[in-house]
């Protein structure tokens, strides 16, 4: 049976832990052993929305595992601009490859693609809904930094309303034990009710604040997010909140050594470059974890077993 990776909602804690274990195995595997694991396989990359890290890390992963890559990075040069439906695009492209990674501006696009397709579909972001591979790499980074995910105190900061990485991460973290959330956002960008309903399950604690200082003083992880201009229906609303939170080295001066800063990137002004040289910066380590986790994901989704 073909496997898909669409949403954290459908992934049990055990399934998440399996992905984390697989990534840990890929981390220590010599490149010479990896280079033929997906030989003869082709990855179709269908990015209807812009991306740097997610697309390039999937492409790099496929190449490092011996496979090949086809696809597009924006819909403008495809039949989509002629009015082709997503379903027709999937029915066509599935003939050309063995697995599809899709990013799409509409929520639910990856699920619709998975229903149509005869080959596995990996969701690389659907509107403001889910971004499960980012979540798995975020969890892998936390696991590496702290040795566990249970009992972590995690501040989510910035755009909690539109950020799909936050929505996916919340869905995943509630499956772990005694995770504490501090939700830091301007009032207009609070975590939506349809995500907070996920918080009503599981053993965790959640609190909302508008004060970033509180997160610096009390949390293990600060998960910063960019205020995403492209998600705002009203540009004036974006202008009001765009620089709500700015983390800099001065703010981190007396932070506990255990505190680590994560960010799905790209960053704009929310993390000052002077944070990069502090021991708290872990967002580039997170990028490296992304490559490892995506090796595990592609290999597993294509039916591989180590």
């Amino acid at each position: 049976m073909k496997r898909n990776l669409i949403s954290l909602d459908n992934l049990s804690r055990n399934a998440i832990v399996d992905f984390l274990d697989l990534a840990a195995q890929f981390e220590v595997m010599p490149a010479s052993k990896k280079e033929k694991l997906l030989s003869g396989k082709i990855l179709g990359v269908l990015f209807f929305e812009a991306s740097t890290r997610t697309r390039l890390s999937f492409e790099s992963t496929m190449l490092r595992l011996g496979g090949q890559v086809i696809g597009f990075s924006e819909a403008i040069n495809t039949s989509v601009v002629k009015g082709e439906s997503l379903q027709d695009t999937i029915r066509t492209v599935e003939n050309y490859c063995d697995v599809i990674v899709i990013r799409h501006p509409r929520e639910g696009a990856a699920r619709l693609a998975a229903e149509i397709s005869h080959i596995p579909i990996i969701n690389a972001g659907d509107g403001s809904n889910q971004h499960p591979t980012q979540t798995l790499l975020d969890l892998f980074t936390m696991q590496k930094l702290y040795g566990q995910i249970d009992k972590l105190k995690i501040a989510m900061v910035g755009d909690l309303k539109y950020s799909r990485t936050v929505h996916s991460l919340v869905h995943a973290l509630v499956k772990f034990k005694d995770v504490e959330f501090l939700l830091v956002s301007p009032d207009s960008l609070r975590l939506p009710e349809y995500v907070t309903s996920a918080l009503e399950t599981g053993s965790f604690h959640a609190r909302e604040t508008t004060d970033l200082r509180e997160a610096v003083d009390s949390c293990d992880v600060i998960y910063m997010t960019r205020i995403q201009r492209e998600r705002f229906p009203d540009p004036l609303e974006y202008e009001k909140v765009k620089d709500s939170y700015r983390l800099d080295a001065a703010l981190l001066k007396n932070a506990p050594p255990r505190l680590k800063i994560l960010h799905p990137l790209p960053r704009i002004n929310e993390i000052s470059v002077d944070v990069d040289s502090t021991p708290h910066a872990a967002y580039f380590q997170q990028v490296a974890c992304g490559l490892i986790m995506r090796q595990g994901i592609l290999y597993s989704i294509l039916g591989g077993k180590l």
Partner: protein
Amino acid sequence: MTATERVLLIPKIENGFVIDHIPAGFGLEILRVVNQHHELDNVVITLGSNCKSRKLGRKDLLKFQTSQLPPRFLQHLSLICSGVTVKRIKNFEVEAKIVLEPPEIVEGFLACPNPNCITNHERGASTSFHLLNRSPNAFHCAYCERDFSMSELEAALPKR
């Protein structure tokens, strides 16, 4: 009031359907739903409003003089007014009755109120909702993964 007087107020029907145990005041809401199902355009319908009820204290009821109720109408009714009783009447007697429960899965009937849900943009894409809560009913969109109250879903239903 005697039994004969009650019969005069809301006449018995020889053949057809009675929707009973409608919470008092909700009968008009159901008539609005009836209006959205054109198969019922020529059916004679009687509304009894604020009738005495042992079960509810006060209730509304609707009588349809027709040989069948469209399945889509019953599905619609089960979504907005779960718990009502539908009785099939033959020769003035109740031949069968069912209590309408909200469906666990609603395929293709509801529209997603989220304007950015793929089901609102893709030609031929069907919708799929899973029941989250009963009374009041709430559903989860299988595509955009958002939760909606029945009143939000009702507002997004295509009108005639």
